């Protein structure tokens, strides 16, 4: 299926490294849809973007569902421990 479902967040003070090097990230989109490269029917895809710098200012990942869950748990654990840092 094409889910089309997209979560979009504004990113205020973060950076990503794309083909042209580091750039300030302004937007992140998260969606479950067909991957371009990963060998799954569907993946959790994340695009970190800076539209002002053009479409090439993009860090993209396509995560299998198990990998996405593991990443989510890792983020959760890291963010919680950071709160007590």
């Amino acid at each position: 299926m094409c889910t089309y479902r997209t979560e979009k967040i504004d990113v205020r003070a973060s950076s990503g490294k794309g083909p042209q090097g580091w750039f300030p990230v302004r937007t992140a989109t998260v969606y479950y849809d067909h991957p371009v490269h990963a060998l799954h029917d569907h993946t959790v895809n994340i695009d970190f973007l800076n539209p002002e710098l053009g479409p090439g200012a993009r860090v993209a990942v396509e995560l299998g569902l198990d990998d996405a869950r593991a990443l989510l748990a890792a983020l959760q654990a890291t963010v919680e421990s950071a709160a007590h840092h």
Partner: protein
Amino acid sequence: MHYDAVLAETTGIRGADGDLVEAYTARPMDPGPRGGMLVIHHMPGYDRESKEIVRRFAVEGYDAIAVNLHWRDAPGADPDDAAAASRANGGVPDDRFVGDAAGAVRWLQERPTSNGRVATIGFCSGGRQAVLSAIELDVQAAIDCYGAFVTAEPPEGFPIRVRPIADRLGDVRAPLLGLFGNDDRNPSPAQVDELEKLLREHGKTYEFHRYDGAGHAFFSVDRPAYRVAAALDGWQRIHTFLATHLREG
């Protein structure tokens, strides 16, 4: 031997608002006359496989074109980057699609080889746009390959600018071929039933084929969703449908 030369190249066409928009074209080099095919790419973009489909139609004897519907979001970008930019911008607005598709249909009709007849085919999000083209444009046939949100509402809070066109199906003015996978959820078999019911009630000419063991994107040769039996039968249905509707009237 049969003369089978084909010319494939990128060109610019005038789309919505008169904008110059990138398009990929492929044409047999014999003098014609012949029908034209507008290929509407899937949501992942104006990619290598979409261009391969354009060339396939030329090999089958049609002038063919695909417009880069993500051109304005990301001119010159890689197809996957352009698709991501389009998604972040809320998708392709219907009025812009209609303007770009009208420009492509005009380009086909203006070929000296044209017999004046044009069909559209769309995959994934392009399936819905193919149905829209049969409502909005002067085309003689349209092919919807698993287009979602033709009849169903997108979920609440949905950020992509897409809305059902069920209320407009009475205005469909071209025969419609629909190809669907029974394992698809967008569109689900129930949604395909609903589309078929509405077309029947409006007295439209349509032909639907549905495949067991196939889901969304079963024509995609570069994806795990590819289903060879469904794709082979689907291509046969497509060529038969076009032979009927793109013949010189």
